[in-house]
């Protein structure tokens, strides 16, 4: 594929708002997970909650979009001078030439969950309840169109936990097809009862802060977050580039990965092929690494069969929690920060490495310069996506 430049980015997770606190956390390895006290949830689990996401923070005139998901998105937009970068791109290309390719899995379902507890006697939702701009899967896209004044092709992708990695692929194709000159890529996912009780029903949530690759790992910790990047054709002297991307389907099971990581390996192989790179060209791999017993084992097999044990791997989900639909963009931005700043993230909460795993896992962050990295995102339905970034 033709490489494309990431010219701006912004992020918010439980580690903080913006790249400065995020980078500090990558360097220190601190975890943002805390015992779950979210809303009325009574589950023995840990979550990575975004500070301030409950506040009234959307700009005036955007009340109808007011839901936790769009507020988490707004916190990212306000970080890192991103709004100014979008405005400059809009002035340069024109509103209709900048596309929106963002993702979410939760959208604003939290507000509907609460509304269902307050149904009227005839079963109808409370007066003033808004569906289209808050809960509809496209609400994040509509919010961004109006908030940023963008009029290019706009979709909300929703492929569970691979969503916002796949957003890069959709944007790249649309730019290649000449339908836009630049693209807003990313998305948001927010804590809600559906995902907390849903993963609990699948016995996939841990009672402890999640421990990827640990011998005693027992499930995920949910997080929330948002991230956005601007994609443009390369023009900088020292660009951060998306070099490759690979998508695949497991064809195995709706909520369990293929036990040998078949789909995961295919996604990584296709990303290498699209970049024209060999496995040995990649120095660091940000794994999906959710800390489920089955998922980590499957990914380990896939990594070993493609890279052997010669690549440094870690999962940042012990720090951020699993941000589900936002995991793709959050971990893409973490991977780009790692590349730019010369720090390979560690794997928070990893105590005793599972002796059955064979890849090379980083426990603590390492100061190391490197030029190419891969980020993995795998989702329900067996939808997988791997991205390769390069700088320097």
């Amino acid at each position, binding site marked *: 594929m033709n490489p494309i430049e990431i010219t701006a980015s912004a992020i918010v997770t439980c580690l903080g708002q913006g790249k400065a606190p995020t980078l500090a956390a990558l360097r220190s390895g601190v975890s943002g997970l805390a015992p779950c006290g979210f809303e009325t949830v009574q589950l023995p689990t840990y979550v990575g909650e975004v500070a301030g996401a409950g506040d009234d923070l959307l700009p005036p005139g955007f009340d109808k979009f007011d839901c936790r998901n769009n507020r988490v998105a707004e916190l990212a937009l306000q970080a890192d001078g991103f709004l100014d970068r979008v405005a400059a791109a809009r002035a340069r290309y024109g509103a209709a030439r900048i596309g929106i390719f963002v993702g979410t899995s939760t959208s604003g379902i939290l507000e509907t969950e609460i509304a269902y507890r307050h149904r009227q006697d005839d079963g109808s939702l409370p007066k003033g309840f808004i569906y289209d701009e808050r809960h509809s899967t496209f609400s994040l896209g509509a919010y961004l169109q109006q908030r940023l004044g963008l009029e290019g092709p706009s979709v*909300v992708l929703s*492929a569970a936990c691979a969503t916002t990695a796949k957003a890069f692929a959709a944007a790249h194709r649309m730019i290649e097809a000449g*339908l836009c000159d630049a693209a807003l890529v990313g998305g948001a996912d927010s804590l809600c*009862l559906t995902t907390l009780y849903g993963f609990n029903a699948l016995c996939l949530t841990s009672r402890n802060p999640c421990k990827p690759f640990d011998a005693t790992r027992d499930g995920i910790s949910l997080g929330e977050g948002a991230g956005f990047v601007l994609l443009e054709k390369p023009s900088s002297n020292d660009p951060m580039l998306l070099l490759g991307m690979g*998508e695949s389907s497991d064809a195995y099971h*709706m909520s369990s990965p293929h036990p040998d990581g078949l789909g995961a390996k295919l996604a990584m192989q296709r990303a290498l092929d699209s970049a024209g790179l060999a496995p040995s060209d990649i120095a660091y791999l940000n794994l999906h690494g959710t800390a489920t017993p089955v998922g980590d084992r499957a990914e380990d097999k896939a990594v070993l069969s493609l890279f052997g044990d010669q690549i440094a791997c870690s999962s940042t989900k012990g720090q951020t929690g699993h941000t589900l639909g936002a995991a793709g963009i959050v971990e893409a931005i973490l991977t780009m920060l790692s590349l730019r700043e010369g720090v390979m993230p560690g794997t928070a909460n990893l105590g005793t490495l599972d002796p059955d795993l064979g890849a090379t896992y980083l426990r603590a962050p390492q100061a190391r310069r490197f030029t190419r990295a891969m980020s993995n995102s795998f*989702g329900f*339905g067996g939808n997988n996506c791997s991205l390769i970034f390069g700088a320097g």
Partner: protein
Amino acid sequence: MRVSIDAIGLCGPGLDGWTNSAAILAGRAAYEATPPRIVAPDLLPSAERRRAVPSVRLALQVGQEALQASKADVATLPTVFTSSGGDGSTMHAILDTLAQPAREMSPTQFHNSVHNAPAGYWSIATGSHAPTTSLAAHDASFGAGLLEAASQMLASNAPVLLVAYDGAYPGPLNRVRPIEGSFGVALLLAPSGGIASLSIERVHGVPNGPALDDAFLERLRTHNPAARSLSLLTAIARGVAAEVQLQETANHMLRIAVAP
């Protein structure tokens, strides 16, 4: 953007497969608004067939019809699934459960609630490891999905399967999101040949094309996002050159020159 329509799958009220429906849409056969005939796709293994909700069956049924009418190799065929909001019945069941004190959620309902459920079931049903995209654009979901599928086909110069589906939500959601009927359509896009060729242009504006001749079908078209495709399908069925407009975002549309 130029794409060809190699094959079509269709299921909606009184629209049972493309061959029958084309005669109705072309005005050669009478339309009768019978309930959609959604069958359990025989592609699915029995466990998945039991778990698949009606919207997933609908999506797979139209996808299978288009696939069988074409020579495309499903193993390498990328898919694009577009829907305004996925499965409303599953969403309602989860929301209702979460409003009860016990909050005992069904694991199957949870995995069926993801927007890409049809993509997951499709890959299990066909054994295909090909890339897949699941997206939403509210009322513009069909136009946005067509643009995405067309851009994929141009990027690879190989066939792409687009599946659009939307169904009515149960109460109380149907009051806040009044989608009517169940409607699914699959278009197998290919570089050349086939039933019709489309020249697609993205332009500023909102569609102002003529209403469909049949009042019931026109209401379906305007009240079910996937059924927005009926204007395009009608033009293809008539087999004469025509221009069709489809909403793509709030203020942009696809202007499509349809040629037989």
